[in-house]
């Protein structure tokens, strides 16, 4: 059993998988793919693995998987013995999948703004920034009421799920796309909580949060 991640170090979608595998303590190999400026994700050898031409791709023995949300679900269902990261209960599965879709909307807005500002991609910057703000507003509201109701995470269980992992990176990287988070205090507190999950790991632009409580 060997996991290989086709990875671009500065990609938030690839980082989601590194993050979960680190939290689960899963060993994995990395094959770096030069997304920028090399555009290797559009090279023939890459398109044979993922015809959609998108990172990340993950191989586990004979399996070849793409889409970070799908891979998060796969990893959790295969390797998370606690069953907490992608819970089986149908209602919770639905909640998690709902947020996986939000995560894709965050990629399409916050990550697009970052690609436009930092990597010269051609996106309508004001439009994608506005979309990101709309999502962040909704998340902030959801999380503010969550705190009142004793819910710390995006979904209802008392622990984080892959929904939190999937939404986290491009929230944290939003400033690289010119999207400030000063209007979303509850969202900012949630990013502290994610950064305090045991096994948390960083990527360029995402810092640790420091300890929550002194360990005795």
């Amino acid at each position, binding site marked *: 059993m060997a996991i290989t991640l086709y990875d671009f170090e500065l990609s938030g979608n690839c980082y989601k998988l590194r993050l979960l595998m680190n939290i689960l303590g899963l060993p994995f190999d990395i094959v770096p793919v030069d997304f920028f400026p090399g555009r290797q994700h559009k090279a023939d050898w890459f398109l044979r693995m993922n015809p959609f031409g998108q990172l990340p791709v993950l191989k586990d023995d004979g399996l070849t998987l793409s889409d970070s949300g799908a891979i998060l679900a796969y990893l959790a269902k295969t390797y998370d013995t606690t069953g907490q990261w992608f819970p089986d209960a149908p209602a919770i599965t639905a909640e998690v999948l709902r947020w996986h879709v939000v995560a894709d909307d965050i990629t399409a807005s916050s990550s697009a703004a970052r690609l436009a500002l930092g990597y010269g991609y051609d996106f309508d910057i004001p439009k994608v920034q506005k979309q990101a703000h709309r999502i962040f507003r909704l998340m902030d*509201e959801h999380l*503010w*009421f969550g*705190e*009142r*109701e004793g819910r710390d995470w995006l979904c209802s269980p008392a622990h984080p799920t892959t929904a939190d992992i999937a939404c986290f990176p491009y929230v944290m990287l939003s400033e690289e796309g010119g999207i400030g*988070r*000063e*209007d979303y*205090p509850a969202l*900012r*507190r949630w990013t*502290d909580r994610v950064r305090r999950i045991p096994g948390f790991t960083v990527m360029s632009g995402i*810092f*640790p*949060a*420091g*300890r*929550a*409580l*002194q*360990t*005795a």
Partner: protein
Amino acid sequence: MTLSLSDPTWYPIASSDDLPFRHVYQGQLLGRELAVWRADDGNVNVWENRCLHRGVRLSIGVNEGGELKCQYHGWRYANRSAGCTYIPAHPADAPARRIQNRTYPVREAYGLIWSAANDDQPFRPFPGAEGHDWFPLRPMPVNAAPEDVLAALSALAPDDQPADLMPGLSLRFGGTYYFVQPVDAGRAVIRGLLATQPDATTLRHYNELLSKLRDRLERAAAKKPAPEPLKPAFEKVSAELSTMPEIAVPRGNTITVVVKRKWTSADGVIGFELAARDGHLPTFQPGAHIDLHLPNGMTRQYSITNGPGDLMSYVIGVKQESASKGGSKVLVETVREGDLLAISEPRNNFPLRRDATRTVLIAGGIGITPLLSMARFLDKSSLNYELHYFTRAGDVAFRSELEALHGKVIFHTGLPRAEIGLTIASALGQWSMAQHVYVCGPSAMLETVRSTAAAQGWPDEAIHFEYFKNDKVIDDSSAFEVELARSAMTLHVPSGKTILEVMRDNGLTVPSSCEQGACGTCLTTVIEGEVDHQDVYLNDSEKRSNSCMMTCVSRAKSPRLVLDI
């Protein structure tokens, strides 16, 4: 109405709940960005959101409980004062106290955090504030001009019960108070307060009401030209304030403190808590000491035992000497709670590195005082340390303070002399990279630690101690002139006499304490001439700078010295 950068009004900038344990909140007021954080002692800090070093936002930094650590190059700033306490690029030096971030006034009241652009106005409760258990609604940021937001809120009031306008962009109707936080010319946050604790339905109701109001305001604002944003000028911090000074700075004025508490901490050790009369005391670093000016005219040095950001009072420990030389005797016998004393600003000759993988702290007797402070700093940052405290039986000072620490604290009480050496040897262990030992105690113990450490492979740079004594033989054979620039006097210093003595013979009052070049009390600025340094107080670069000297032991190499006295 136009917003002004210098508007002195107090506005709410956050809810109390926005500042949970060890969080850094990103605040905004009148075009400025703020880093807002609650220290472990409950105090709320409102600072300009920029690290003095490279302008990086402090709101992405780490709240360490008593200090805020910048994410970028790790500069740390103290709770309350915003003074810089540690610069990782200079791990072995003490930063100057005056490296200080910009702070804003702050009040926590009625479930909200309040701040203002300046100190021009005292904080005043809003009408009807007292006597309620206020509940802050979910804050509602709005991309619209603050005055438009206020007008729209006022239009929410029913016709038969018009809104009651209050000072500072606020109003009330039907028992609900609304405050408009002016973020910028085109941005605001609505902060509502309810006088009673609401249920979940009520909260959702208000959130919906305010969300709709926001959407309407933003649609209207989008049709108008965007107002010109406020442009706060970042006061450029001078190089002198934002970089590590090369040299010691002669002490500034003394500070008057009140003896808030005096107690027996152990047989023969008296604790004194010296409190600021208003506001807080200056920033200090672990290992720092203050000069205490005693009622009988003497000056004595005492280490500060406090932890990070603990600036409302300094706690010192004073040993009751049996053969008292007068200093501690006066303190212990005549100073009482409520008395006023004068102290100097803190100075640090015993800086603590915070980049060690292992820190060993070794204290003997009253030598615990600077090491207690160091342990508290390491403790808050969750850095690895071991504190070994050697005392005679019954002499364990600051026991409860030490027991409150989370690291390894080992008490060695009443050990026979022969065992002390062995215990120190095993406490130190073999040296490896990035390990440091700090020792404070009687000179015999200092010697044991130094020689044992050296024998076990510890290099000089890894062994840290503070000089309380100057063991060098002083060469006082030279004779020279001193010109006292501010006193318009020229004096002759013959061989066999110190500059200090000659100044006193001529009727000048100049402060001094140890009179052997160890304590730093007589530090003086040199304007001209070449100094013959003989003290152990200044470090090599300070000595090389030739810009200051200790008049109690140091002399002149040139025929004439000009001093700033």
